[in-house]
């Protein structure tokens, strides 16, 4: 029967070709690999569209590492709001080591309230909330470096 690597290869193949299902039965062994329903894709190309562009939509390529997929479950839940870092720097939860954090999980925050500081080039940049709501998660530890766009807080907005 198939070797493990071959089964893996099969799984990859099904994942990448958009095939719906593969079933192999041989000498008492049965292997079934089922693809995932294709999402309906809406693509808005910036420029003139041609048939090649339509074709592009069909297959996820093995070449496309899915780094753009948001890997944090909080961000996909509809009623959660993510505060990303607008700059590169070092994340601080308080204005100085002796102070309390600006906010902690469970705190109510209002638009414009300072959530944290991101230091870059010795400048302390205060990051403010852009919604009213409750802090449900702090994504970064105090003193850690953050990238542009990196999630800092998850806030559940007030309805």
């Amino acid at each position: 029967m198939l070797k493990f690597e071959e089964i893996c290869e099969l799984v990859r193949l099904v994942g990448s070709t958009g095939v719906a299902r593969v079933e192999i039965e041989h000498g008492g062994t049965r292997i079934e690999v089922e693809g995932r329903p294709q999402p309906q894709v809406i693509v808005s190309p910036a420029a003139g569209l041609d048939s090649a562009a339509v074709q592009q939509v069909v297959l996820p390529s093995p070449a496309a590492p899915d780094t753009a997929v948001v890997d944090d479950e909080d961000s996909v839940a509809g009623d959660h709001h993510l505060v990303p870092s607008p700059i590169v720097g070092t994340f601080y939860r308080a204005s100085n080591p002796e102070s309390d954090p600006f906010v902690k999980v469970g705190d109510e925050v209002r638009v414009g309230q300072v959530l944290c500081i991101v230091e870059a080039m010795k400048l302390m940049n205060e990051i403010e909330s852009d919604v009213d709501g409750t802090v449900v998660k702090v994504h970064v530890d105090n003193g850690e470096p953050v990238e542009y766009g990196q999630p800092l807080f998850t806030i559940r907005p007030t309805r």
Partner: protein
Amino acid sequence: MFSKVLIANRGEIAVRIIAACKELGIQTVAVHSDADRDCLHVHLADQSVCIGSPFPVSSYLNVSAVIAAAEITGAEAIHPGYGFLAENAHFAEIVRDCGMVFIGPSPESIRTMGNKSEARRTMAASDVPILPGSDGPLENRKVALALAGEIGYPVILKASSGGGGRGMRLAWHEGELVSAYDSAAAEAASAFGDGTLYLEKYVEKPRHIEFQILADGAGRVVHLGERECSVQRRHQKLIEESPSAALGSELREAMGRAAIAATKAARYVNAGTVEFLLAEDGSFSFMEMNTRIQVEHPVTEMVTGVDLVKEQIRIAFGEPMSIPKRRKIRPNGHAFEFRVNAEDPETFAPSPGLIEELTLPGGPGVRVDTHIYAGYSVPPYYDSLLAKVLVHGADRAEALIRSRRALEMFRIKGVKTSIPLQLRILDDEDFLAGRIDTHFMERFLG
């Protein structure tokens, strides 16, 4: 040696710098915009930091984001590549002020050479031949007219802080100069925030010849021969080669001496390029100095065997250049560079998009520097350079033949490229004979 270097660039030059760092045992930090998460330099570097949105001003031109990325990753030095922040004296200064090393010349050298009329004055004071023209910025139109009358028409007005043709005007007689002056000043003011102009004698069919130089902290300055860059369209180079068909050994030596004198006059340390205009009569004059590594640097690497980016890093660290003192650098064979741009070869319209298929040429004498791969999407935000095809041959004839086959073996689907245009240039009799000047492409396309 540095233990960690941040590369403040993207595309093929970021990949090229990573290669040099790897050979020197240096850890690398890539920075990238939101649009460049899948760029090869991000995959190849030891660390990467997203520094901003796709627009260059928010990411690759964002000084504080780049500095912050270096700080949070503990990089000791920053290599700016070319373009973006590479010739920004202010950035070089901040890097130094933050206790890091800028891999390039000093902010002072960048500033001196960045101001074209100041550069002219510095060169004149060091006996580097310059075109007849103003000693510094022109005070007003009247001064310009008097000077033009003295040196004779045609003359050309250029912006003191300029580049890329903006603020530039050609005048064949006094009437044209009168009308050109104000519009040039206005264009310069709006493009560079500096409306001052300088004036030079206009050379009619010049070649663009540049000399690669290396200068280290111990005061040693060498040149590594010339690159012929006359094949350009709207000041964008398309094909470069070394050596130039126009230079005999005597002229090469004279121009090389001038390049070294120019470098010394600017108290320049690191790799740099001195550009000359070479007139039909064999006279040459200093045009400007590029205070960075250039796109076409591999042409020189192909004929000298010197790794220019490694030399840049060594020199920035304070080491002497690695070229043996007694070694006379002579070009070995002949090299061409073809810039493969994502653009329509007829209309020159940019052609971003998904690279669907790609095979690169290999075989003897061929080097390809690139960041693209099958499955990569060329974003519309940045310049259109996809790859540099470098070709080396025992002589110009072999290099020309090899160039054709290398470009024919470069297979790409999904975007249009300049390759069909370059293959047509390889059929041009004047190009094949080396009869080129900076107006070649106008004639060719005309």
